[in-house]
């Protein structure tokens, strides 16, 4: 059964429990950070940071709104990173959960190409060119546990479960939130496995909150690669 997240940013308090729990479970090292005039830290995702609570101060309707966006890989249903790489031994979709997984074989891929292919600007490379991002805690999920970020969330902003259940939860919650925030919306719910609910225009939360240029489908390069894929496979089979 394929899985999905539902992230309700309207109840997120930016405690960053998810961000730390993610580091903790994956044994990722801390980053050197500095005060940039925001509580958000570090500044961006990295090879060692798969989950980041982005914080933005915005004036909306004459009132200050502090917007929180717990960012992570969306685990796209049709991931452009996977299709751009075209190497299932480097980037593949786990068939049981739908998680988009990166392996050590991402080393050697064209880093720039993969990152630019991502409509959410998620993958990050190490110095040696290996790529990393959120893995949906697929080890936990396959053993009946929730992803670390969801397990630790004290407010119920992070939810995880079967895709249908999450979409139903998202739609129900959207109706409730719209009563107070008419501009509330779900972000790309049909395309991704991490469905965000925002109270305001998603662009106010983060530049890449919704897919950039996703509406037009996939890039020409990916389309060509997809069309050539049977040929490539056939050539490989010969080799």
């Amino acid at each position, binding site marked *: 059964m394929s899985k999905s997240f539902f992230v309700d940013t309207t109840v997120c308090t930016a*405690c*960053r*429990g998810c*961000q*730390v*729990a993610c*580091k*903790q*479970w994956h044994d990722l090292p801390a980053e050197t950070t500095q005060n940039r005039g925001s509580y958000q830290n570090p500044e961006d995702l990295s090879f060692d940071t798969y989950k980041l609570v982005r914080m933005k101060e915005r004036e909306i309707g004459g009132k200050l709104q502090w917007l929180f966006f717990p960012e992570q890989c969306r685990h796209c249903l*049709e991931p452009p990173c*996977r299709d751009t790489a075209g190497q*299932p031994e480097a980037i*593949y*979709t*786990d*068939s*049981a*959960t739908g998680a988009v997984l990166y392996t050590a074989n991402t080393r050697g891929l064209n880093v720039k190409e993969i990152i630019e292919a991502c409509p959410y600007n998620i993958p990050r490379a190490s110095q040696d060119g290996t790529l990393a991002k959120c893995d949906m805690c*697929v*080890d*936990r999920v*396959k*053993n009946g*546990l929730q992803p*670390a970020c969801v*397990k*630790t*969330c*004290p407010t119920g902003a992070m939810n995880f479960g079967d895709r249908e259940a999450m979409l139903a939860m998202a739609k129900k919650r959207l109706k409730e939130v719209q009563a107070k925030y008419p501009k509330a919306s779900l972000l790309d719910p049909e395309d991704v496995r991490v469905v965000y609910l925002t109270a305001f225009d998603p662009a106010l939360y983060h530049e890449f909150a919704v897919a950039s240029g996703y509406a037009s*489908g*996939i890039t020409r390069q990916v*389309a060509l690669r*997809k*069309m050539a*894929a*049977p*040929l490539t*496979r*056939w*050539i490989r089979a010969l080799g």
Partner: protein
Amino acid sequence: MNVSRREFIQITGATAAGLAVSGLGFDLSPVKSRAQMLKTQYARETVTICPYCAVGCGAIVHTGKRGAGRVINIEGDPDHVINQGALCSKGASLKQLAENEKRLLEPMYRAPNSDKWRTVSWDWALNEIAKRVKATRDATFTAKNAKGQVVNRTTAIASVGSAAIDNEECWLLQAMMRALGLVYIEHQARI
């Protein structure tokens, strides 16, 4: 690359069929679903209480059954009545209390006006603290205030801490500080 006409038709035919089915082309990623083992699979589970604040969240500590029994993972205890599995960012980082190469293992001392820290022994540090507390307290102790009221206090020493001590230790700390005549007794979580 040599592709015969027949093979070319096969390939383009397959592509066209794929486009018809998916709208974009074949999804050729192989069906892959790997079994994964949890890093906590064979760990010992011990329940504990988060030491940081007064909420008192429950946590499960996973430690290795073999070797030195070091901490592998700490996460919220779903059976705990208070947090039901959740932990904030401080609680989620609990593992670092035990597994942290930056943790100091010996007391450090920086002399007044010095810019260097040096390692000292516990005996030296505790004696030095006791000596200085006694000297400061004796020099600043006030038995009565300007109005002649009995106050028995010193305003030259303050106590800050500690979130990470338990109820009984809190009592001991409080009794000790009150006995010395401190009035500035604060908890660092409030600062």
